[in-house]
């Protein structure tokens, strides 16, 4: 019968090597899993930071986002909770804002491109900083569909006097006969500059005062109108009795105003009236209020 003996040194060494290899594989899986989890958590954290900053900048108005702005910060700018949970990986965010516009066939509509990048550097099992990572999210802040402009003023003195027409009002009077003058001493009451064509709704209110020592006739009127730039009268001309109504208002619509600079003029004049009326009646502006609602024009 064969002589049975114990394991030889070689056999023991082979067993040890195999066991070592298996242990190394298991350890590598454990350590690898640990670092993969850390990487996933870092990515999730970077995504959270990036998303918060993107939301913050998307909440801002179009005009408050400057062109070519670059804003930088780190996670401590969001909450101390991020600082308290820092390991040896640090997160820095950058917000980049750029002007852009659509290439539409009709309107080139501007928008702001908001890009948020969060950078961090992964640390390897030896504690060395290795791969630099970036999470990036982008979105746009569109040009507003609606703009609202308003201006108002109170005038405490008699500095804004209505010009008088050259003749009593009759239907079909010419501009020269009206003798229009601006309600203010400036050429216009309002300027605007939109990047796209707009449809406008213009509303204005005027409060007037007359010289009570010269009583106006019952049909003696003040007329007002609105003009865009130096063009034709938009909407209607208001004709309001001075004596009974010292508050004038008008609402008008102007369609498809081209992009670019424009000015709104509110003009007025006092009817010269019947020869029987007191020619010395003076009318002054006491307060004005002009509001413009501008909606993006869409070709029908």
């Amino acid at each position, binding site marked *: *019968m064969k002589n049975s003996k114990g394991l030889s040194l070689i056999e*023991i060494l082979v067993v040890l090597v195999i066991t070592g290899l298996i242990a190394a594989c298991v350890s590598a899986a454990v350590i690898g*899993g640990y670092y993969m989890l850390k990487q996933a958590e870092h990515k*999730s954290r970077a995504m959270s930071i990036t*998303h918060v900053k993107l*939301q913050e900048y998307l909440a801002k108005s179009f005009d408050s986002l400057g062109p070519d702005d670059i804003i930088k910060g780190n996670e401590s700018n*969001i*909450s101390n909770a*991020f600082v308290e949970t820092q390991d040896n990986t640090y997160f820095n965010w950058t917000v980049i804002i750029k002007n852009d516009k659509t290439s539409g066939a009709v309107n080139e509509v501007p928008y702001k491109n908001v890009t948020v990048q969060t950078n961090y550097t992964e640390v390897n099992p030896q504690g060395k900083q290795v791969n630099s990572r970036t999470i990036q999210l982008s979105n746009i802040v569109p040009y507003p569909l609606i703009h609202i402009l308003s201006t108002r003023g109170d005038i405490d003195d008699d500095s804004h006097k209505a010009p008088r027409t050259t003749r009593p009002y009759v239907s079909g009077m010419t501009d020269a006969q009206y003798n229009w003058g601006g309600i203010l001493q400036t050429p216009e009451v309002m300027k605007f500059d939109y990047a796209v064509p707009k449809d406008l709704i213009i509303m204005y209110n005027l409060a007037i005062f007359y010289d009570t020592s010269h009583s106006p006739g019952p049909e003696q009127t003040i007329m007002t109108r609105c003009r865009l730039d130096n063009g034709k009268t938009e909407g209607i001309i208001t004709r309001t009795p001075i004596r009974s109504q010292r508050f004038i208002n008008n609402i008008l619509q102007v369609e498809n105003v081209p992009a670019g600079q424009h000015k709104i003029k509110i003009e007025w004049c006092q009817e010269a009236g019947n020869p029987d009326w007191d020619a010395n009646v003076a009318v002054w502006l006491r307060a004005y209020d002009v509001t413009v609602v501008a909606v993006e024009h869409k070709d029908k």
Partner: protein
Amino acid sequence: MHRRGMTLIEVLVALALAGIMFLAIFHVSTIAGKQVHVYIERYNGYSQIGYALDDMSLRLPSASEIMTPFTKSGALEIQRTMRFKGASNPYDVTPYQGDTIYRYRVREDGALVLEDQTNDKTEVLIESKFRPRVEFIRHGEQHDAEPDFMTVVISVFCERSKSIGLPEKLVKAEGIRFWFVDVVQPK
């Protein structure tokens, strides 16, 4: 036939080797077990934070009234609860017409809850075992933040994470923009 057993030295060496092997396997399996437990807990923690933030992102934007508004627009301000009036069905919102009073807060037992104070219902968003902490943050003029915007940061504790070298606290944030009201209101 001559058969001989193992010598004492051989038995001792074999025992030592087996012991080392068992210790190594035990150690690795213990670490792996701990890791799996911690990973599951962390996943659970992140899921519950995500659930709470999703709920807030869904209900808060359509709020029609903020009952715990931020009062200072110029400085960093942090609140721990948020009470507001919102829609009972957040998928069917009528602007400015909330019909339900809600409150997000960390309850006395430590859970982060959503209280429906109109219908006297409470939903647990994050379990108390995670010791959640919620911050409703208004950065104010420091960031030139809009008055209708705030940041919500939720952190939870994941115990035993430190035993495998991971931070115990998990944190996530979300930016929330209100559609109808400002979160900063004058006193």
